[in-house]
């Protein structure tokens, strides 16, 4: 990390399948309750569908599936973190959003090698909170833009 030692970083915390994740606050456009997601047949497993957010088409990604966890109960209420990548809108579906926290950039530690292999690709680092560990999510990887580039 090339951040200066005193640089502060903010994260929106979210819970996905019981684990706390942090999403860099500058990437988050909004947090909203997704309504009426249209399934896209034949799309990837992790694509929950597309939805209309004030006239814009948003691709919703089920983060549980993305992280290799079982799909949540369809009736359970979910929240969406709106992010943008290359002028396209995405919504990361999470179980519940939490607080926004701020910390020194230097407090972020590298991803421990012991972390679940299937998660390594999505995690940029970890932050030790008093009682639990927050994994810092790599938004671009979560969206799957890299896979797309590889496929192309």
């Amino acid at each position: 990390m090339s951040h200066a030692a005193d640089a502060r970083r903010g994260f929106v915390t979210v819970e996905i399948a019981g684990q706390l994740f942090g999403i860099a606050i500058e990437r988050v456009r909004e947090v909203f309750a997704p309504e009426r997601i249209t399934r896209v047949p034949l799309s990837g497993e992790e694509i929950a569908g597309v939805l209309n957010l004030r006239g814009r088409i948003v691709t919703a990604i089920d983060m549980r599936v993305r992280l290799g966890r079982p799909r949540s109960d369809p009736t359970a209420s979910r929240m969406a973190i709106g992010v943008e990548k290359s002028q396209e809108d995405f919504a990361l579906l999470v179980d519940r959003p939490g607080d926004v926290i701020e910390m020194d950039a230097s407090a972020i530690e590298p991803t421990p090698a012991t972390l679940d292999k299937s998660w390594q690709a999505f995690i940029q680092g970890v932050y030790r909170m008093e009682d639990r560990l927050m994994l810092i999510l790599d938004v671009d990887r979560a969206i799957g833009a890299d896979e797309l580039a590889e496929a192309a």
Partner: protein
Amino acid sequence: MDDLLRDFLTETAENLDLVESDFVRFETEPRNDKILGNIFRLVHTVKGACGFLGLARLEAVAHAAETLMGRFRSGAIATPEAVTLILSAIDRIKEIMADIERTGLEPSGDDEVLISELDRQAAAAVPPPPPAELTPEQKTEATLGRPLKPGEISLDELERIFQEASGPEPVALAAPAANQNATPEPAKPAAAAAAGEETGKDQPSVANQSIRVGVDTLDRLMTMVSELVLTRNQLTDTVRKTGDETFQLPLQRLTHVTAELQEGVMKARMQPIGAAWRAFPRLVRDLSADLGKKIELVMEGGDAELDRQVLDLIKDPLTHMVRNCADHGLEGSAERVAARKPETGTIRLSAFHQGGYVIVEICDDGRGLNPDKIRKKAVANGLATQAEAERMTDQQVYRFIFAPGFSTADKITNVSGRGVGLDVVRANVELIGGSIDLKSAPGAGTTFIIRIPLTLAIISALTVVAGAAAYAIPQLAVLELVHAGARGEHRIEKVGDARLLRLRDQLLPLVGLKSLLSGDSVEDDFDDNALVVVAQSSDEAFGIVVDEVLHTEEIVVKPMASRLKHIPLFAGTTILGDGSVVLILDPNGLAQSVSETARDARVATTEEHTGKVGENSVVPMLVFRAGSGAPKAAPLALLTRLEMIESSKIEIADGRHVVQYRGSLMPLIRASDDLMLSQSGEQPLLVFSDDGRWVGLIVDEILDIVEERIEIGLGSSSIGTQGTAVIAGKATEILDVGYYLTLAFDDWLSRKDRMQETTPQTRILLVDDSSFFRNMLAPALSAAGYRVTPVDGGAAALALVQEGKTFDIVVSDIEMPEMDGFGLAAALRGEPATAQIPIVALSSLTAPEVIQRAYQSGFSDYVAKFDRPGLVATLNALSSDQRRAA
């Protein structure tokens, strides 16, 4: 005046002003090369544009002036006489332009005196002999008095650019083979004095009437209009659901304003397709030199307009096609001469509107495709088995050249033949919702036909349901909707594993939308009773089995998210009026999943059916507006009268609109789902009558009655419309009157059904090559209680009779290709089954000798084509005669 010309005038007026002022400056600073360079670029632009627009007079004057200026550039002294002469040439150019601006045409006139004076001065202005062995840079130095600065162009470079511009005289071009394209004759000396001299100088200039708007601004406007359309749809949807009457009037106004705004912005984004062609003359000239072939390029219909976004996307594919024609299509000179063809090959580009599309044809008169060679190659590439390839028609075989990696060029040239190309062209064309096809005749040439939608942003779409979700199908791809039934006219047949729809004389492969979208291709998701959307992909017609059909509406196409673009079944997404997101199906993607077995089965059981894309018929049409969207039209002959009724007199009975009319209640049907009844004033009605029953069709406004040759596009038949035709330059939906009649008369039809138990329906064989008339008459005759079997020609009719199908009455058109009505009548009289039955001629020809001939050929009655009541009366008389005889 066309827009291209208008643009040219605006631009040239600006340029000329600059030239004039620069030139005057040049006179005082004859050593300032920068000014001279400027002048040359400007005059060159003017001259080039004149050549492109075919303005021969302007071009000749500009060219002569340029030649003289060329002398100054070479170092000759700019004498005041010469400068005056050039300025007077500029004046002449302005006069001619003012005339063009007024009349849209280049005025005739004589510039010979001016031109010869310019030429004389040019000859007199001898540049000082340049020092013998100087490099271009040194030469520049000599004239300039200093070395070239970065970014400056040497005079030699300018000279080269100048020489390459084709002029009115056949100047020595780098490639003499190509100079035949732009050599307009110099204006002929004529006794008449220059007609362009006295021009209306008071006329307002076009330059003041048009402004240039950034493309970004237009795009942003388009986006906003799209949003407005969405919001309008949303509001309409809400009002439809709640039935709140208070919003109806403002909403109706909003609908109209939105429609007009949409049209206006679309129009502002339109550009002539010729804009994409501008580079072609030069391209062909270069190709001609590279390939050593003599090629002439002919361009027609460049003024057909397209949305600029579409235009951008189509430019590269078109360029590729032109290259392809020059390289593969046309033979070398020697081969052409040997084949007794003109030495110069022709590439012809033409464009015209048809339905909601622009059709571009790229045609060469070269060697044509070799079907056997393509067959071999297709087998070698594993695209077809030997047996398949042999069974295919040439036309089917030709389409292999669109397959990836397919090239029949024997040798690879630097122009094309590397096996990348036509498949990419096809993919690009299909990406924007277009399609590509070709025709070829060995030895005579090849024609590529590209269909391009006028616009991408807002399209009309049919919403269907499959499984739990709704999907939109672009209306342009929808041919018709069919309810298949085990005992009905349209049956689903099984050939091996494949299921096919028998639709009249065609067998269409079927895809089940539900199973297709679930990914399990074999799942049995529909039975014999299925709702089928007959759709047209670029290759073929096929049926899409859906659960439910909702409605047609204008939708705003939003591109598919990047993560979902790889799914071929979807073309994009849209937001419906209720705010939900719906996926837009891609007909070409769907067609790809038509199983091979279905395709084979179809090929095996039907002969190549070449459906006509459009038919020409002169029909008087009533054009009107109803709801949003395109204007609509109905054949005038079907109409009984036009009425204006007081809005307050419209009542609602049993959930439908009715009005007191001629002493009874007349049912009213709205001609469009989103039509709102006006609250006050008068409401226009189209009144149809049938067998003593009346029905009123509510419309917003009667626009016009036109009588012209209309072309009905194949693309957009849906519920209540027969297709789209261009009427008075606008895409217009042709109303399916039969559909609306049955809407009003559903109780009446069921009464007919009960009647049927005692009296068997009279079976009518309806023969007409025009699907327009078949579609118009079949429902009308069905509504009158007849069982109608429509066929598209004499041969098909005869085949049915010979198969043993029985009919009580034959109704046939006279003018038909191949077997005409006379031939059919004679043939039917020769068949035992039909020797005695009535045959009614239906024709627009009324000459006594034609009628005479009809009776001689075996027709028993003759009815004018548009006289539907007359036809029904004749049929009623004939069928009651038959019943009495039976």
